[in-house]
């Protein structure tokens, strides 16, 4: 029953965020320079009456409330509008490009989590200073590099760009996991387990990981958001035809309608990822209790 009410609450929260995001998006679109101006009006072959007819076609959007409800109505019916720069339906563009971004994000997260978490676990369990120094230096340098510079360096080195997101999320995962694991490895029951002669792997899996698991699961949600944000410079500079590259092109072309829709889609994806990691964390806590 608790799980159902928690899921209902989450669903309601996501709906509210989407509605508010829709309102914010509609307001931004309405404020955009050139809103309501049709390029067809510049066609010299059109007479005054045709231009007037074109303007009247947009007149329904003049009132913010009717514009917003029209926008929301179209949104709820899956019509995300048409991109002004690319002259194609936004839904079609997103359907083409979202799988590319999901593939990059998935690969990047897999790489970042395997490298970051394994290195953090090795540092905590072995207590080797050189591993800690190596991990800290690597994470420190990567934290000081903007994702766009990393992308340029990858292009120069002709390295596979899809792995790049892994380098962006690695330092956050490494530092956070190391801090969490070292905190739980200092707990009295872990010291007792070590004193009783339990092996490193057994201590890690049965005694160190469980107290840190809910926070690590929360970090998983956060890294999804970080990866989607870093996808913009990476896809733009490494020429990966994903959502990030589309957002960049839309920003350069001042295609606010497309940008707002992309922002809402990414918000929805990150919100679902965060909520899923929250639910997993709570389930884990309940299971452990």
């Amino acid at each position: 029953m608790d799980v159902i009410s928690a899921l209902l609450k989450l669903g309601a929260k996501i709906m509210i965020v989407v509605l508010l995001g829709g309102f914010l998006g509609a307001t931004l679109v309405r404020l955009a320079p050139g809103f309501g101006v049709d390029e067809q009006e510049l066609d010299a072959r059109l007479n005054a009456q045709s231009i007037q007819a074109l303007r009247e076609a947009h007149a329904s959007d003049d009132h913010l409330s009717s514009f917003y409800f029209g926008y929301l109505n179209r949104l709820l019916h899956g019509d995300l509008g048409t991109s002004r720069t690319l002259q194609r339906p936004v839904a079609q563009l997103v359907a083409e490009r979202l799988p590319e971004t999901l593939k990059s994000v998935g690969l990047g997260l897999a790489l970042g989590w395997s490298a970051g978490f394994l290195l953090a676990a090795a540092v905590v369990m072995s207590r080797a200073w050189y591993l800690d120094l190596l991990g800290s230096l690597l994470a420190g340098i990567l934290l000081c590099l903007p994702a766009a510079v990393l992308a340029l360096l990858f292009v120069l080195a002709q390295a596979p760009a899809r792995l790049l997101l892994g380098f962006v999320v690695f330092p956050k995962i490494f530092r956070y996991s190391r801090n969490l694991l070292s905190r739980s490895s200092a707990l009295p029951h872990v010291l007792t387990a070590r004193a009783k002669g339990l092996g490193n792997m057994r201590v890690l899996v049965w005694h160190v990981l469980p107290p840190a698991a809910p926070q690590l699961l929360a970090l998983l949600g956060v890294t999804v958001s970080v990866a989607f944000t870093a996808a913009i410079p990476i896809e733009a500079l490494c020429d990966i035809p994903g959502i990030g590259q589309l957002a960049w092109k839309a920003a350069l072309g001042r295609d606010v309608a497309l940008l707002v829709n992309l922002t809402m889609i990414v918000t929805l994806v990150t919100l679902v990822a965060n909520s899923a990691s929250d639910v997993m964390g709570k389930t884990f806590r309940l299971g452990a209790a």
Partner: protein
Amino acid sequence: MKWTRKVAIAFLLFVCVACLLANFIAPASYARQFRDEPNASPSRQHLLGTDDLGRDRFSRVLYGTRVSLLLAPAAALLSSLLAAFVGGIAGFAGGWVDRCVMAATDLFLSLPWLFLLITVRALLPLNVSPIISVLITFAMLGCLGWAGAARIICADARAFAQSDFILLARASGSDGFRLLWRHLVPNLKPVLYAQFWISVPVFILTEANLGILGLGVAEPLPSWGSLLRELEGFSTLSGQRWQLVPLILFILVVSCFHLVLTKEELPV
């Protein structure tokens, strides 16, 4: 104080003084073009050579550093003040104010902020001057970066609002603004200070990302974003390694900002 922290502060001070004195140190203006010497190698006249438009790279690094190093802390100050205002009032008032403000903060945190930044950037008119573009870029960073800090400040303010010394102050007749200003704000200073220092490198990195994508500070005004954008034309075969100087300086300055924070103040 740890020696690494001392070195970091000294280095940051040195870079700040150098870029504040850019007018005296730089051999040329950041926009002056030496048309006969595009892509020149380092020489006595051009310490770091020139870029593809013949502008002195050393001067551009100095002026670009000044732009980023002055405006990123200004944006961090703005976001810290916003966070203090929002988080402090929410935590102090409690009840429905706290719940509403935290819901708004959650909403703000759910939005991917680089997407939001480039959306807001795309809304700006095309004919803004470079100075206005730089001010708008950093003002946007300041206005959009408050949410995370507000949550932390709200949690601290909530804890302080229920503490004994606040109860005592209330019993002594302090209330409202006086209680907030005289008793709560001084106790929030350490967390505000930490949030400020955490925000500075974040804003520097974000401006660099925007600049490299061509959505940051407008030319010819240099910033670290536009300086790092030069790496697009860098080739390992050309051997022009001095083009990497802005990147090395960038890494050093951002690492120094990280080192200034103590272990307890670090975000992760």
